[in-house]
């Protein structure tokens, strides 16, 4: 006689996107993205309009991929309402049932999940986001941050293995933001799969251990945030320097290998820097040695879009 052991049920919570694209008419919002999101906190980083929300909605089962597949533990997400037993979703849109109190909203969520003791689950979830005190007030009286927290409570009420948050820190005051960041980090450490989108690098850096970068609908970079940070620091930087003697300073700067190009403009010297650390150490020394006064040193391409543009060109190399 043979005996078979029953398979062990594991709560994996792995989202897999395989060659996923999504287009609206002629506009491509997400272009051939393949990524795997597993346990831990993953930050989906990209400038506004990069397609983060579209990607997140495909992971949440609210958009069908135009091509490719999106699965949760191997099961398709689209047209499969059972995935919501495992997924908690915090949408970016502020809209909640304003006529319900926070308590009624979270309790409804618990009951819609068919939990055995919905009141206990609702109490626990509200407590987790520190909304117990305000839970008897109607949601329409809440601040933006409070709405956000009550949405998080409703998404957490069934203790999901996967939590998807679309720009969750928007509109929160610094204290609330730190609290939610802490909560997200803690849940990630517990082994949940957490993905949140953001266009702010610092947010992602503080919470996520893993980053996926999306630029113009394309998967631009993926990996540990330190690695991404390093690549961002290594990219060529543009600086504008205004001084008492621009011409002299420019001549000295181009003589050093830390700068690739130097041009004199009406606004000062524009320097394309290839070695960031060397340049920032060199500049004050040069100024001192040449007896040139520095009036202004400013980076001209520090905006997120240019950082992303660099990353995307780097990833396609």
């Amino acid at each position: 006689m043979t005996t078979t052991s029953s398979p062990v049920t594991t709560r994996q919570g792995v989202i897999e996107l395989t060659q996923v694209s999504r287009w609206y008419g002629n506009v491509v919002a997400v272009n051939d993205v393949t990524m795997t999101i597993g346990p831990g906190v993953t930050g989906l980083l990209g400038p506004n309009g990069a397609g983060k929300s579209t990607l997140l909605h495909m992971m949440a089962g609210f958009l069908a991929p135009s091509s490719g597949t999106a699965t949760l533990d191997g099961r398709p997400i689209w047209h499969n309402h059972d995935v919501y037993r495992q997924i908690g979703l915090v949408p970016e849109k502020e809209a909640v049932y304003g006529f319900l109190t926070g308590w009624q909203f979270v309790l409804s969520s618990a009951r819609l999940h068919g939990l055995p003791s919905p009141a206990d689950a609702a109490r626990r979830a509200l407590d987790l986001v520190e909304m117990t005190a305000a839970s008897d007030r109607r949601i329409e009286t809440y601040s933006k941050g409070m709405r956000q927290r009550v949405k998080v409570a409703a998404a957490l009420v069934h203790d999901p293995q996967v939590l998807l948050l679309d720009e969750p820190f928007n509109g929160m005051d610094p204290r609330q933001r730190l609290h939610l960041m802490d909560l997200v980090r803690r849940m990630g450490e517990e082994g949940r799969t957490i993905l949140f989108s953001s266009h702010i690098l610092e947010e992602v850096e503080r919470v996520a251990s893993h980053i996926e970068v999306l630029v113009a609908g394309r998967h631009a970079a993926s990996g540990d945030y330190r690695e991404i940070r390093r690549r961002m620091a290594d990219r060529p930087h543009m600086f504008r320097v205004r001084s008492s003697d621009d011409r002299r300073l420019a001549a000295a700067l181009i003589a050093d290998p830390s700068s690739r190009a130097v041009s004199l403009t009406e606004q000062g010297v524009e320097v394309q820097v290839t070695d960031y650390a060397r340049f920032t150490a060199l500049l004050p020394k040069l100024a001192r040695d040449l007896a040139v006064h520095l009036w202004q040193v400013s980076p001209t391409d520090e905006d997120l879009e240019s950082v992303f543009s660099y990353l995307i060109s780097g990833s396609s190399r």
Partner: protein
Amino acid sequence: MNTVVADITYRAMLGRKRIWLLILLPVALVALAALLRLFDGQDEQTAVTLMKSFAIGTMLPLLGLIAGTGVIAPEIEDGTIIHLLAKPISRPVIAVTKFVVAASLIAVFAAVSTYIAAYLLTGSESGVATGFTLGALFGGVAYAAVFLLLGVLTRHAVAVGVIYALVWEGVVGGYVPGARKFSIQQWALSLADHVSSSPFFSTEVTLGFAVPAMVIVTVGAVVWTGRRLRSLSITGDD
């Protein structure tokens, strides 16, 4: 049918300003009937005219529009529907629940006010009150289903609904002989006519056509709503 979805939907419909839209027309109907009764006394012909043109012809499609689109369209419009859809509940169940809420509101507001108004004018004479009440009830249920479907098919459900109610039901269904067969209003009148023995009105659409048509349209619209909800795409802001 899901009681939590129903509870939230009832609160949205009844706990806010929208309830006044549901109350206004029924109150106007009953007030009109009371005035007519006061000045003309009980008059079956007046009653039939009021029921045909106002209760079934005007109030019913408008209440169907308010209730049918109201239970779902605003939620899709502002995105709150995501809180219902991101749950392990089948979308057809959500569609059926929304339909039951809309249909029950029609039953309370349209059918009850129709009965009160008709009873004020005719008492229980010739079965006018019963006939029009049944017509309002079943016609209203069909309207609720059609407008519910419209609420998930288009973001302009109210505008499309008003055009449908006024142009198709009001003008084409009322005056173009061939089109009458395909008008919910005419099906409701057919039912009223069958129950009532009043000599003051008759309809062209037979009960044998009207009843199956109402059932098919109602069931079809609810099923279609469920299917549409299943494939409803919700996008973010980018």
